[in-house]
């Protein structure tokens, strides 16, 4: 049968079936099981009202259970068994194998990089756009253009960037620009000073974050929560300090490294740095999302706080960083979380651009390869469980916030 006709029939059956289910089950409840007439009418109405919510919610619950919650358990089971040995229980052998696979650690390293760089850059750019486009008349057009990549598929976006990265300078813009650098003053400015400034800025932000996390240890009044939150703070503070030191060390590298001027570059294959060229795709797409959410938050700031700050003589930068940012801090965290979930899920970019070659795999690609290329369901499911574990702090945070 033609799939289009099949689709139409299924849509009709699907919608009709759903509506029919909801209507008929409601009727059954009211007319047959607990008739709302006769001597027990009052009691019956109460009983029907106790059951009805479950009728409404059952299909959704069923779907969620089968496609989301059951698979978590099933993946857990698969990760503890060996498919080739007739689903025999093998304990943690799959995890052992996973942890001894250098490809897995490569994926973990890349994913960590993605988790640091992509949400940070998207949020920063999104904030910048949200603030700047608010100041100008054609801001709406600018916003539409920044937002547009959100409509394109990851695959399409990857193809767009593959053209940008093409090895021939006559096709690839990046190589065309690269060929302009010859080691003179301009090269020094753009390839040494500019990256150094970005790294120093990142180090500054990381230091500030470190300070925010560690402050309660020095100021007794700000101490909240128990020993667990103190431990989490210490870990997060240490991580931020590590990132700051790392960034500072890289500043030295930026000035000492010899750059291959005048040679066309295959950007996707340069070890380690190719990760950043892949991240650029995601940043290009997701900045629009960050911008839209942050822009709404900026507009939601009470005008009085801004006005009184101006009257008190706040300069634009002070106004932005000391009045506006603290008020939308909650939204920034939300954006960060949404982007992090996106990073952990995204599979298409690496798959399209490098097919996980040249050490670019991230966890989503690693597990796809294990599950569907190597058909190793044990180790694949183990990496799925690792992915779930990575997401679980976010799930916990979401749930806590919803309550």
């Amino acid at each position: 049968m033609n799939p289009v006709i099949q689709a139409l029939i299924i849509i009709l059956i699907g919608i009709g079936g759903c509506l029919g289910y909801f209507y008929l089950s409601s009727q059954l409840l009211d007319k047959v099981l607990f008739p709302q007439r006769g001597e027990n009418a009052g009691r019956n109405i109460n009983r029907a009202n106790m059951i009805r919510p479950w009728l409404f919610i059952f299909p959704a619950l069923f779907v969620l259970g089968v496609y989301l919650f059951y698979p978590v358990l099933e993946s857990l089971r698969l990760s503890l068994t060996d498919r080739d040995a007739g689903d025999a229980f093998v304990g943690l052998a799959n995890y052992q194998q996973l942890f001894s696979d250098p490809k897995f650690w490569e994926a973990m390293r890349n994913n960590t990089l993605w988790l640091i760089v992509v949400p940070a850059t998207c949020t920063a750019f999104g904030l910048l756009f949200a603030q700047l486009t608010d100041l100008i008349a054609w801001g709406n057009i600018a916003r539409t253009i920044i937002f547009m990549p959100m409509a394109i598929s990851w695959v399409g976006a990857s193809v767009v960037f593959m053209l940008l990265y093409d090895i021939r300078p006559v096709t690839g813009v990046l190589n065309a620009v690269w060929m302009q650098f010859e080691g003179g003053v301009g090269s020094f400015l753009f390839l040494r000073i500019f990256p150094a400034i970005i790294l120093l800025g990142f180090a500054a932000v990381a230091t500030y974050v470190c300070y925010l996390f560690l402050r309660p240890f020095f100021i007794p009044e700000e101490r909240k929560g128990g020993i667990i939150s103190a431990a989490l703070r210490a870990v997060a503070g240490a991580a931020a300090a590590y990132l700051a030191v790392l960034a500072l060390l890289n500043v030295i590298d930026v000035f000492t490294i010899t750059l291959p001027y005048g040679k066309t570059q295959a950007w996707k294959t340069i070890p380690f740095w190719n990760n950043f060229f892949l991240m650029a795709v995601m940043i290009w797409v997701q900045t629009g999302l960050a911008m839209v959410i942050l822009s709404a938050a900026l507009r939601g700031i009470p005008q009085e706080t801004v006005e009184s700050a101006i009257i008190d003589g706040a300069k634009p930068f002070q106004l932005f960083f000391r009045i506006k940012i603290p008020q939308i801090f909650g939204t920034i965290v939300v954006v960060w979380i949404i982007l992090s979930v996106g990073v952990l899920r995204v599979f298409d970019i690496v798959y399209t651009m490098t097919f996980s070659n040249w050490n670019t795999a991230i966890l989503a690609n690693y597990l796809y390869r294990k599950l569907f290329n190597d058909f190793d369901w044990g180790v694949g499911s183990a990496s799925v469980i690792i992915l779930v574990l990575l997401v679980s702090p976010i799930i916990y945070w979401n749930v806590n916030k919803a309550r």
Partner: protein
Amino acid sequence: MDGIVEIKSSLKKWVVHITVALLVAVWLVPTLGLFVSSFRTTDQIKASGWWTALFTTEQKEVLRAADPDDFRVADGDVFTVSGNLFGEGSSKKITLWGPSSLASDAYVPGEVADLGDGESITVQANGDYVWRGNDDQLSGHGQRVFVTVRAPPEFTLENYHWMLFDKQNSQRMTKAFLNTLTVAIPSTIIPIVISAFAAYALAWMNFRGRALLIVAVVAGLAVPYQVSLVPTLKLYVDIGIGKSYPGVWLAHSAFCMAFAIFLFRNYMAGIPREIIENAKLDGANDFQIFIWIVLPLSIPAIASWTVIQFLWTYNDLLTGKVFLIDNTGDNIILTEAIIRMLGPYAGQWAILSAGAFISMVVPLAVFLTMQRYFARGLLAGSIKG
């Protein structure tokens, strides 16, 4: 004093304008490159950057006179071959030319180049040439001519035609396009009713366990859908669905369910309580309240969600790959079709860019017409439950 402040503030305005313009340009360049390339021929793409395609450009080309063995005309002792170097009807103009790579810009159009021993060639600006020589000289290959040409912008729809309609192209995208719509439309419509009923129950009905269910939905928001690939596929194979459209529709519906319920519940919870209580006093039951009051009032939220879900399912790769695409190649979807082109057509940007753009037309059209709903939905999804 006022003047200085004014200059300063107008300067600041210009800084903002220029910064935004630069950033917008950076954001636009990648897409623009693909878009322009999709309207150029392979030769053009190899000859000059797409960023020059919008202007008249100067480029160097190597052309060849017609084969003398077939086309020479006797004229007494000498022979001549004449014609146009570009073939027929080109809008290019030759500015400089020469008969060898060392003297590629030795002559201007109209001059006669002496090739020695009485052999000569002359080339006009429009590409017309006359090549003279004796029997020996005018044999073998046609004379090569090195030219510098001014080429006006030139665009073609050939790539799109080839991608969509050409019979010789086995990777035609028409089928993939239809398949993608067949995946995306039901996957968008089916979950609406299910999630809306559940959202109503969670927003407006009191029952034991409601709080727990809301927690479950919120928890489901962040669970990566990679978790369900193998267990669900196993289930499909066990119950005999295998790789099929219904399988992929249900999978898509399930993966978006938590988000849909979350979005709809938040929206429905904002409906004024009096409306619903009045309806209850008038004797309406929950089914009627939902169908006649809550559902119509929730249309904006449903519209926003529909746009997001359609774009998501249309652009999806992984779900389609796992639950639909089999070895027959009949069930290919657009994203997969593009990935399969990347191998055989690597670096052939005329074809790749047209293919990529064909896959983007529908989402871009949806985006440009429904941008407001799209943004609103994303916004609502980010707000506290």
